[in-house]
């Protein structure tokens, strides 16, 4: 009986699986928020009639999948959360050069021959006003005694943007800031979302280097959280979109990039509280021009990544 049931259910399941396979016109792999790609895909299909299937995960998981699939890849468009990916893939020669007509208003540092930003996030201090602590305005404030044992940092080994923030701040003033933070009881708490959650409940008062759009979204839902961009500067994480050269649907993929950079597409980006890549699109939050952006020497910083991370881990041990 058991055997027959198993056979029957497997056959039914196989049927289900095969009929359920959609052959999309464009396949997008994205490390961005799920709600963003859902809305972009729906809007794109409505406007052009071209179907979109997407796979959404963290940057690391997306890369692991692309590497494992390399013998027979299916991805047409990749949207990463780290500009590093765009540089790396361009060096490997995996990208199709394309400049969308809609990219005219995207500033030069957010586009290259083979990639263009979808949107931009920045790192900030996410602070809970109910935490009975004074409102911080600078990174260094969080090393003060008022915030003893009340600060979380996302792990730079898990978050590319946090790593760049650490590198940029260390380039400014050495490792002293982080030593002070560690001495003040700040802890390194997993990836971005994991670091924010204890601040919302009140176990901690602030995240040092929170991803801004997640905190803005929480604030929109009524969470008690404020996003503070220190005047001394912060880093931004542009999210590059690129077309892979093995894509058999390159024309449709280009149309997808065009849509992503259109007025409608950028409005969807702005609605998820990311900064739009186009400077002429409004958003209900501080934009790139409002921030003091710290620049890093990407090549040197990434060459020293292992050493920076090891030193950082040493400080917070």
């Amino acid at each position, binding site marked *: 009986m*058991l*055997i027959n*049931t*198993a056979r029957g*259910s*497997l056959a039914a*399941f196989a049927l*289900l*699986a*095969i009929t*359920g*396979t959609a052959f999309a016109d464009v396949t997008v792999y994205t490390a961005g*928020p*799920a*709600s963003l790609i859902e809305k972009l895909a729906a809007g794109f299909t409505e406007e052009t009639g071209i179907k979109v*299937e*997407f*796979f*959404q*995960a*963290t940057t*690391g*998981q997306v*890369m*692991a999948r692309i*590497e*494992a*699939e*390399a*013998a*027979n890849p*299916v991805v047409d468009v990749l949207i990463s959360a780290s500009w*590093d990916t765009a540089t*790396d893939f361009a060096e490997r020669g995996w990208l199709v050069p394309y400049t969308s007509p809609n990219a005219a208003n995207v500033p030069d540092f957010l586009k290259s021959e083979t990639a263009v930003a979808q949107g931009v996030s920045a790192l900030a201090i996410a602070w*809970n006003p*109910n935490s009975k602590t004074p409102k911080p305005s600078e990174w260094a404030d969080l090393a003060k005694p008022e915030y003893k044992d009340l600060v979380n940092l996302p792990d730079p*080994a*898990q978050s590319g943007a946090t790593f760049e923030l650490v590198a940029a701040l260390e380039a400014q003033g050495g490792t002293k800031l982080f030593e002070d933070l560690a001495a003040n009881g700040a*802890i*390194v*708490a997993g990836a971005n*979302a994991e670091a*924010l*959650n*204890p601040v*919302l*409940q*009140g*176990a901690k008062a602030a995240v040092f280097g929170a991803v801004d759009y*997640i*905190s803005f*979204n*929480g604030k929109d*839902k*009524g*969470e*008690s*959280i404020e996003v503070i961009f220190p005047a001394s500067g912060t880093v931004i994480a542009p999210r590059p979109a690129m077309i892979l050269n093995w894509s058999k649907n390159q024309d449709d993929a280009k149309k997808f990039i065009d849509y992503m950079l259109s007025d409608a597409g950028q409005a969807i980006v702005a609605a998820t509280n990311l900064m739009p890549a186009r400077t002429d699109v409004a958003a209900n939050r501080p934009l790139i021009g409002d921030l003091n952006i710290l620049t890093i020497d990407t090549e040197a910083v990434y060459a020293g*990544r*292992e050493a920076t991370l090891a030193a950082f881990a040493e400080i917070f041990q």
Partner: protein
Amino acid sequence: MSATRTQPVNPAVLIAAFGLVIVVAVPFAFIVLQAIFPELGRGSLAAPFSRILDVLVDPRLIRMTGNTVLLGVGVVILSSLIAVPLAVLRALFRVPGALLWDVLMLVPFMIPPYIATLGWIMALQPRGYAEQLFGFNLAPFLFSIWGIIFVMTLNTFPVIYFAVSRTVEAVGSRYADVGRVFGASAWRSFWRITLPLSTPGLAASMLLVFAMAIEEYGTPAALGRRAGFDVLVTGIDLRVSAGPSARRGAPLLSRVRGVMCFGAFLSRRGILPRRSYQITTGKPQKLEKRALGRWTVPVVLAFVVVSFLATAVPLLAILATALSRTISGGLTLSNLGLVNFAAILADGPGALKALTTSLSLGVAAALFTGLLGALSAYAVVKTSMRGRGLLDVLTILPNALPGIVVAVGLILAWNQPWLPVTPYNTALILLLAYCCILLPQPVRYATAAFHQVGDNLEAVARVFGAGPMVAFQRVLLPLILPSLLASMLLVFAVATRELVASIIVAPVGLQTISTYIWRQFEQGSVGLGMAMAFVTILITTLLPLIVLSLLGKRGSLL
């Protein structure tokens, strides 16, 4: 080849071997190949061995290995301390409300460990639910090795509880009564007769708990990193997600863990075969349980405390989060409501599709691994085939591989351009992944059960003219069915919530329950994720209960 001349190959063994090759050997072969040829994903055999040599020296490796062993052993010891006494009491005595306790012990199984951990964090961290309600927090305890062992034990002890209570029940009091007749005290006959005869179930379930403990990612990642307590799994994940330059260490780390699993497995093989545990001999036996007498109150109290900690606390924390409009609002009346549940309903298609996908995958995985597990265990325990040792190794192999490595192996194997048809990019690849990861569970349970079934029973069936398949289906399978069903339930529970492999191999556009919840967390919608988790726990607990009571098997499982 003399054996095959005198005895035709048993079809059960052939099916088992074929299934194991597809489910385990193929992805494993590709993982090994990729470790040797790092460019394999690109269809190239360039630069062999370049990565293996790179990673052999890592000072952190030793510390992580030590931590992993410590964690596994700690969880096994604490789980046994909690589960074995309760299971023995449940099996040999009439415990008031026995069925209720069984159901309550089933729930921790169904709570995904990362959800339970988050529930504990939200309950015990400073200004958590415990502090909001009762004014205390236990953060120093929770974020320590003891906290990790505590939380993981509450998640895994049901494995031992169900295995031991079933085995002891099967042993019954009959053999112990013989001891009593010959003058042994009740304690003595328990220690010397009942407990030793239950060793297969106990050993199998302890091995499973050890494997689950050193495999679990969410709990050590959430609690341990703050305490500076790194284990191999968190090390593997860091490397896999860190980018190409750091990724090369991952295969080595998983291999170290694999060695540990094999060690535990071999030590179990060392314990078992020396003696006979055959207690199911075909003689009818009365199932008679004793009264607890004056011990009734303390025993019931023990069940209450354990199910409160393992079931009530995490469930209440999950529910509290799911009912909160905002996390920062805390547990005030104005902040509570059904907003998150309403949001799930509003996202009907997405949430419902994720639920159906995961539930059907869970059922399919349970049936498939149950069947394959029973056949493989039969081939290993009850036949004298050549190569059955190899089959045995194949069944334990998945325990040595973390989900993310299995996922990568499956993609490498099934995404080759020359394959005419492939399960890749269909839901079937998820089924293959779940079967590979979870196969050890039914195999271990079925192996333990087969060890207790007398050889005579099959022989009798064969004497009366039954072929090997008929004897398996009509005589042996029904005898091991209670154990097998328990393990299939476990497979169902774990498959419906598997996260790591699901994220990597899921076909584009397909969501499972776990990826759905994970995405909510990633976007900071903790309440929404918890609401979905709560609904899932209810369904995954109720569904097997309903199915089993419809089948009329409730008595044998619960």
